């Protein structure tokens, strides 16, 4: 009796540990897949691009933001994941000599306004309250989806702000200001509500570095255009438009980003190394103490781009989740799969085979046309019978 029970117990323990090991194997494989170097756990990218100043002479702030918008879109973040806040509309301003355009250099080479931009908050909607509500997610239920920051705990967010600022404040719309403490608290709320995986905060104003001095939440990488007591300067001045069209810091960042594309392996450290005082006329700063990864291992596309790492595995090589994880972890990340066309062919034939089987079976068994012919004969037969019946 006891021996019988012990045998049962041993078998059960063995079975349980076997199953647990299998499951743990799968769990390990799955988390390994999600934590490969270079992907590091984020699955989607968002960008919040804010221009906080209005009036015609702040043309360059609008151009800064639109330039950043264009670059971020080019590198792969879709419009649905970009929130653009423009406090004024310079392209349709009566003083714009080139209406419906916004340029960011004096050669007027690229029209940033174009035909396909999506501005989510415009004009007087760009306020401190709206910005903080956007970040924290405490919005009115009636607010449309396009105006919400629908991030989750695996989102990397690029927050870019530009306008007129000062010691730990940024001016909004010429009548209110947001302080560094406000943004820091908003980010902390986001962290507590698991609304971001990592944030890259970039700010281009006077005394910009003071704005990120008060952050205290983890996983934030911050950079600013000038330190306390310094102003940030504009870069290009266009005589036909009549105002400055871009700021130095943003111009440097954008020209650096023009050199990369979606598949680039360029790192953040390379961008930070490109800062130089001669060009910027101000001391740009970087804050990395809250950021867990080393900037030299962080790709630019982790924040500026919306790149999804996809690996194509041949379907017949995969038997279960373990095989899939093994193959996935060993394969190199590739954006385009060479074998895609072959795989598609295989898939489509399989579907057709399945389809024709089903059709044939049904056609033979249930709805033979013979029954239909029989019923037609019956109809005419009944009619003929009625003709002879009175």
């Amino acid at each position, binding site marked *: 009796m006891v021996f019988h029970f012990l045998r049962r117990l041993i078998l059960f323990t063995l079975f349980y540990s076997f199953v647990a090991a299998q499951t743990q194997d799968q769990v390990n494989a799955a988390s390994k897949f999600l934590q490969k170097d270079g992907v590091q756990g984020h699955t989607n990218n968002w960008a919040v691009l804010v221009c906080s100043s209005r009036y015609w002479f702040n043309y360059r702030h609008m151009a800064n933001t639109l330039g950043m918008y264009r670059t971020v879109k080019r590198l792969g973040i879709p419009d649905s994941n970009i929130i653009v806040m423009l406090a004024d509309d310079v392209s349709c301003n009566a003083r714009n000599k080139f209406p419906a355009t916004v340029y960011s250099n004096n050669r007027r080479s690229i029209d940033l306004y174009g035909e396909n931009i999506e501005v989510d908050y415009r004009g007087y909607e760009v306020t401190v309250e709206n910005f903080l509500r956007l970040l924290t997610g405490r919005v009115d239920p009636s607010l449309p989806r396009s105006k919400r920051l629908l991030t989750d705990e695996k989102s990397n967010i690029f927050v870019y702000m530009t306008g007129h600022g000062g010691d730990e404040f940024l001016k909004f719309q010429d009548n209110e200001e947001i302080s560094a403490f406000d943004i820091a608290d908003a980010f902390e709320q986001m962290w507590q509500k698991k609304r971001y995986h990592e944030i890259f905060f970039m700010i281009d104003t006077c005394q910009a570095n003071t704005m990120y001095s008060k952050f205290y939440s983890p996983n934030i990488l911050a950079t600013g255009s000038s330190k306390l007591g310094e102003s940030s300067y504009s870069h290009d001045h266009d005589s036909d438009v009549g105002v400055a069209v871009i700021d130095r810091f943003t111009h440097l960042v954008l020209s650096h980003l023009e050199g990369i594309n979606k598949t680039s392996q360029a790192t953040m450290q390379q961008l930070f190394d490109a800062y130089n005082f001669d060009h910027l006329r101000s001391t740009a700063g970087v804050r990395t103490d809250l950021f867990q990864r080393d900037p030299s291992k962080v790709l630019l596309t982790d924040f500026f781009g919306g790149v999804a790492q996809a690996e194509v595995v041949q379907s017949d090589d995969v038997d279960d989740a373990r095989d899939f994880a093994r193959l996935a972890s060993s394969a190199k990340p590739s954006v385009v799969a060479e074998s895609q066309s072959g795989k598609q062919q295989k898939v489509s034939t399989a579907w057709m085979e399945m389809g024709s089987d089903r*059709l044939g079976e049904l056609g033979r068994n*249930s709805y033979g046309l013979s*029954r239909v012919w029989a*019923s037609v004969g019956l109809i005419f037969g009944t009619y003929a019978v*009625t*003709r002879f019946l*009175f």
Partner: protein
Amino acid sequence: MATFGSLVVLRLLLAFSPIPNYLYDNQQLTSPLTSYTRLKEGVFLLQNGFDPYAGQLFRHSPIQLALFSTVMPPNKYVLHAFWTLLDAATAWNLANIWKKRSGTTDWRRETIIQASYLLNPYLLFTSLALSTSTLDNALCVYAISLAASGKRAPALFALALLTQSSLYSVLLLPPIVLLLCTGPASRLKTPIAPSIRISDVGRTVFTFVTYMLVLMGISTLVAGNLGWMKETWGATLTVPDLTPNVGLWWYFFTEMFDHFRSFFLMVFTALVTIAMIPLTIKFQHDPLYATYLLVGNISLFKSYPTMADPGLFLSMISIFPELWPYLRHPLPTVMWHMYAATLLPLFNNLWLGHGTGNSNFFYAATLVFGVANGAAFLDSTWAGLIAPYGKPKQGYTLLQI
């Protein structure tokens, strides 16, 4: 005869012109129960082994499915020829009804009747659109014509066949039974209750029920299971498909809350069915006229009408020339119809083609159409009621009928 032939040829020429290409999916000429494209779809599904009734797309009766997948392939040209043939047959049958009713032949009168059917734009365009409501009209007129000729079994078979595709036509049974038992002669001016043998009535009803059961059995044989009833008759009764049409139901059912749906279904079904008994009783002395009025009532209130249903009613008035003097407002009725016939395609295009109007425009036009049909129906009823009293005499007023 020559006129009839030339009208048929004209119809055939129009059918082979490019006009029908624009009409096949027109929602005023076809409905989910009668559309040619849905018929083609159902036949295709059947021929490829799928159940046509599984998708809630195909709502024709299995008899039509059987016919069009075997004997008559749903090829455009074949069907156009067949539809023209049906129209010609219907026109001939209408003239035949008049012949049986009046007991004489008059080729001028018959030509007018045939022309009133073949030149009616409501019927012409519906036929060009290959809508199976032409088939329904043909069966309806054929059933009435056979009943007027006294051929009991074929008439009831035709009515049963008609009921398979147009459920509300079962309401035509009581007047047709009376018609078979009494005869088609015009007795509007002498409203005496006819003597009817109950055994006759019983026999007729029993024959009809038998034919219905036989046809339902054949339909089940075609469809493989009983699911066709829910998709065809069920669609007529419960209105699941709210495609806009020229009827009064669809707009109501798009905007009402689900909570009230069964109530409104009851109300609308009552509107259709409630006139059957009173009309049959009131016009028991002339059941052919009762049939005519009931056709009008059904076409006014049915759930998925096309333009052919009121079109048939309007064309059938040509069979009753003795009542034309008693119509009170024929001109306003015609004007209403012209108004509706102009507005309906206009607002349909404005709503769905241009995008500058909305469904309320089209709904308003269907209301005008309903008023026009109602005016025709009421006027015909009034004329039938007042016929015994003749023209009003000076100094006398009619207090009550």
